[in-house]
């Protein structure tokens, strides 16, 4: 059997014929393996879903407890057999509960990375390299930030940038645009680590997931919802408010005193991109690997082949060519650029 017979792209997502399951399918299927809870990877309406307990919880928060017929929580690194195909979940360091999936069948070993990152994040289990007895045949990697221009700076420095601005402009509100799952909690966690112990205000869309993180034992300090009693426009001056970026450019954003719009995203590395979005203070904080981390991971795993899923595959494939690693694009459809 060839690797492509074990796993190959279909319009519904990556499909494994011998195991009869999809990984992160974009439409409802009878049997799904889900790497993490972001909406483009985790959809509602599947039959059975194998995922980590936390990912299943997050899906239930987002879609309701009946988001699938049969949740199949799996423990880290536990081997589960599906029609003779062995699967196991390994920490990916992307968001709470996020996993890479190792698929083993006969002699074949395939690692599906899902989304992953290697940088410091106090709010989820750190990335862990998959361990196998045999060499890895295929590493299927994401490539969201697979260009040499993406070199994420230290998260601590980005948070320091935010805190410096709060100091310099105490009369203004700092509105930080964040994705509700993962980025929000990471920014809060990093602020707390940097010693910021004031109340942080959050948009309603962030509340359930923040509460879930706290239930899971992640310290986020004092959070309040960013609601406003009439006639208190200045009550957020000098404060940090988190919310989905779309809310800030909408009418919701008007309640704040002379806001500075900030956006926590890997895309913020490119000035023009920040400018186009009207972001005044870009915070380069990404939940994906940057260029260097992608290369390090490929070198460490040393797979026979690299398949590249969504993102900027041409640069990563070019790099593999230069380093005599066999590589090809998978052209999977349906996955969005983070937060666009």
């Amino acid at each position, binding site marked *: 059997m060839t690797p492509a017979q074990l796993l190959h792209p279909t319009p519904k997502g990556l499909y494994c014929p011998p195991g009869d399951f999809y990984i992160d399918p974009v439409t409802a299927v009878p049997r799904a393996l889900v790497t993490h809870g972001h909406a483009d990877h985790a959809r509602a309406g599947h039959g059975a879903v194998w995922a980590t307990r936390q990912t299943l919880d997050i899906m239930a928060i987002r879609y309701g407890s009946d988001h699938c017929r049969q949740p199949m929580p799996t423990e880290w690194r536990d081997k589960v057999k599906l029609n003779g195909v062995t699967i196991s979940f390994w920490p990916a360091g992307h968001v709470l509960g996020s996993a890479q999936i190792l698929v083993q069948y006969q002699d074949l070993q395939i690692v599906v990375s899902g989304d992953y990152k290697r940088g410091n994040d106090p709010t989820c289990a750190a990335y862990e390299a998959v361990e196998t007895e045999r060499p890895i045949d295929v590493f299927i990697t994401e490539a969201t930030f697979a260009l*040499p221009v993406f070199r994420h700076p230290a998260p601590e420095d980005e948070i320091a940038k935010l805190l410096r601005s709060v100091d310099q402009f105490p009369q203004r509100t700092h509105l930080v645009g964040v994705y509700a799952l993962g980025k929000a909690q990471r920014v809060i966690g990093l602020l707390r680590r940097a010693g910021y112990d004031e109340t942080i205000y959050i948009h309603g869309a962030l509340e359930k997931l923040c509460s879930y993180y706290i239930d899971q034992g992640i310290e986020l300090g004092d959070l309040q919802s960013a609601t406003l009693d009439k006639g208190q426009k200045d009550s957020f001056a000098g404060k940090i408010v988190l919310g989905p970026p779309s809310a800030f450019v909408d009418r919701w*954003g008007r309640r704040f005193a002379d806001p500075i719009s900030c956006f926590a995203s890997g895309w913020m590395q490119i000035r023009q991109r920040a400018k186009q979005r009207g972001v005044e203070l870009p915070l380069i904080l990404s939940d994906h690997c940057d260029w260097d981390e992608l290369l390090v991971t490929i070198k460490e795993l040393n797979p026979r082949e690299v398949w590249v899923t969504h993102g900027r595959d041409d*640069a990563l494939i070019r790099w593999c060519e230069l380093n005599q690693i066999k590589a090809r694009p998978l052209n999977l459809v349906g996955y969005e650029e983070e937060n666009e």
Partner: protein
Amino acid sequence: MKTFAQLLDRLVLTPSRNAKLQLLRDYFATTPDPDRGIALAALTGRLDIASVKPAMLRGLMAERMDDTLFRLSYDYVGDLAETIALVWDPQPTDATQDNEPASLSTIVESLQMAGKTQAMSILTGWLDRLDASGRYALLKLLTGGLRIGVSARLAKLALADYGKIDVTSIEELWHGQEVPFTALFAWLSGKSPKPTQTAAAPFRPVMLANALVEADREKLDAALYAAEWKWDGIRLQATSEAGVKRLYSRTGDDVGRAFPDLLEAMDFEGSIDGELLVAKPGSESVLEVGSFGDLQQRLNRKTVSKKLLASHPVFLRAYDLLEEGGENLRHLPFLERRKRLEKFVSQLESSRFDLSPMIDFGTWDQLAEQRANPPHVAIEGVMIKQWDSVYQPGRPKGPWFKWKRDPMLIDAVLMYAQRGHGKRSSYYSDYTFGVWTEDGALVPVGKAYFGFTDDELKQIDKYVRENTVDRFGPVRSVIARPDFGLVFEVAFEGLNRSKRHKSGVAMRFPRISRLRWDKPPGEADTLNSLEKLIS
């Protein structure tokens, strides 16, 4: 270097003028000499260092990185300095080597001493030692032109803010101060007295007028005031002293290079305040003024062709005399200065200098009538000056007034609305409006983003959201039919022909003067009626 890089990063993305001022002021207050002075020079276009050409940088990258990967990166980012700053893979540095580019002054000094090939190797060393944001700042500095949305004027305002003085004092001293402006900063930080102006032909801060409000006029005694036309050109100060000839804009920028024809004709010792205008060629004895559109041909050019010098000659219409043969006239009353000016100008080259004529009037009503019927299209109103007023820098209240002609008005239909920036980013606040063509279509004729109150902005925003037809990123097109749409009364100062605009016309200084909720869009103006207003 790190603080300068942080400053650039913030300035690039800060839309608000006040926030920019604060960032600059804080930088000047916390950065030591000579670095803050070098930064100031860089921001105001006065930093003179051997520049690095983009081709040299591309060559450098070709040696260090795979071509394809660099091209993919550059295509994505779109800016060479930024691409290199981001993709640069620092080589391990030798810690004993002492060339950390910690300060702007080290950078400037080392480059001034180095030759061209040496400069590249020094640059490589620095790029290895800086972080991405520092590399970006360095490359922007060396390739010239920071382009970060900060004008020299804004930098001077921030300086004035920092020293808690009036910006005219900065403008007055500006051309006599050498980079890195140590004496200037010492004065602004209160450590030493104001530096004396030692340069020849310095800028003299300009006196400006307040707009005349109707209520004020009734209180003023017409007999105490002189009146002259307000010409629609560029206010300029022509100073020639001890062989140094300069043309200054009203904010003290040296703009002489764009007007060599005028500069050449400055055969005098003194300083004239006047209006730069374009003459129709061949109008030698009495200068005939061209339109503002003609004058625009001569603005913002690095070099001027002979052809343009012949077809669009400039001249100065003199308003005032500030200095004559080393004698300061600014403390004299206007009446006295005017007499001296008349004599002074009569001795100058008549195709380049003439006198702004005075308007004869007895009562304000008589003046109002003249104002309503100006003898030339290049007149935008009248200036009223107290006969005994001394020439004071800035905009003192009382001695001088400008009484502008009423703006032109048209009724136009809202077509597109765009999201604003900063404070207004949640509002659709930038409006494109159009008028009807003969075949019954709307053609856009202008864009305006002020003139309405905050309450009106809320109403328009609501209207835009409820009547959107289509969206293109931050822009929405709204319903605009003869029977349904929103009509704006748009005020503007003039209309020029324009090849760049689809309608063929371009408005000067358009703003929304009234919301015409009551008016059916079908009754808004037509392109035909607009074209009749072209000056």
